């Protein structure tokens, strides 16, 4: 897996849209003819991928809000964003 520079800013591709499923209340990521059902942490991560925060800032923000998970957050967030990136749904600016 590629490692990303922490100073790069991840941004959801324009064709991908975060949405709340009105039936289940679950967050979803909709893209070209497909729907990815997210868990709450996935949603929290992707919400911050708006092109204004660097990867390091995204991690920092989540660490501040979930201090108990601090030890694993950095790696898990990076991996999650990378996985979405591999689907072509995140651009790095």
């Amino acid at each position, binding site marked *: 897996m590629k490692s990303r520079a922490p100073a790069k800013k991840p941004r959801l591709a324009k064709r991908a849209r975060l949405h709340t499923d009105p039936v289940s209340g679950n967050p*979803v990521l909709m893209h070209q*003819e497909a*729907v990815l059902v997210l868990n709450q942490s996935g949603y929290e991560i992707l919400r911050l991928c708006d092109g204004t925060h660097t990867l390091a800032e995204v991690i920092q923000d989540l660490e501040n809000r979930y201090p108990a998970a601090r030890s694993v957050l950095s790696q898990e967030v990076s991996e999650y964003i990378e996985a979405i990136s591999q689907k072509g749904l995140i651009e790095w600016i």
Partner: protein
Amino acid sequence: MDLAERPYAMLAELTYRCPLHCPYCSNPVRSAKPGELNTEQWERVIREAMMLGVLQIGFSGGEPLQRIDLEALIQTAREIGLYTNLITSGIGLTERRAKRFAESGLDNVQLSFQAAEGELSDSIAGVRNAHEQKLRAVRLIHELGVALSLNVVLHRFNIDRLGQMIDFAEKLGATRLELANTQYYGWAFRNRSRLIPTRDQVEAAAQIALAARRRLRGVMEILYILPDYFTGRPKPCMNGWGRRYITVNPSGSVLPCPTAWEIPGLAFDNIREKSLAWIWKESESFNRFRGTEWMSEPCRSCPQREVDFGGCRCQAALLAGDPARTDPACEYSPDHRLVNEAVRRDSEHSAVADLLFRQNP
């Protein structure tokens, strides 16, 4: 019915009219009665679909650009949060209309190409300069910043040129490429003997598609599904009957799958008389093949029964004469020889000129 079962995607077949004559079209060979739904009826269906759980809508046909209210329908869908896909040949996409689609919030255009080369493309579409008009459509779509997905239907006359098609799609800036082996319904079934590729062609294409998928990961998503006539495994059609997808045809009939009209004796309720929710939950057509109760052997005791859902009901009806039988594409089907024979017998010589071209309803 399991409460988790709700439609995620709706195919809105706005019209069966189409300027192209593709011989693999899966539209009905005869047109639907009564006529097309009007704008208000479609707007109602779209709102009801959202309430029922639909997240994605595909505006399709025929050629949806033939409907002058397309921009209004896109806007209605987008305003209530649906992800909007326009599934089009690109023929008739003017700059003015493209702008209005983009302003309405259109999320994605799935544009069909018949081949990467103009001459072959036009000969399959049965229309001169169709390819050129599609290239113009690509430029318009990019100028407006709408996502582009390409769809190429594969058959004997273009499957050997898969590598060129993938390069072509990449060059055109598509972020998704659907390489769809012909499925034999509608016009395609009538042309099966002329369209079906050989086993060698299918296997070579699969290798090319797999290699390209790896190479283009994160750049262009490539969908290539092995054709069920060749694999011995049935496709998990629609991910299960009445489980994830819903189709509304031009006249307002609601179908569990776009080709379910192929099934003789199955009547479909119409949104002119019933609500979409009632049809999804209560109608006989949607409940007929839901779950596993309807299955007979070998499906009934098969460990794959909730993976492939017995395959395709339309194919069972078309080939074996009974929609409740195991899909003949399955190697365990007692009717599997029908598929094998079709592959063997149909791999004879044929030319584009021999094809039966789609006529308009």
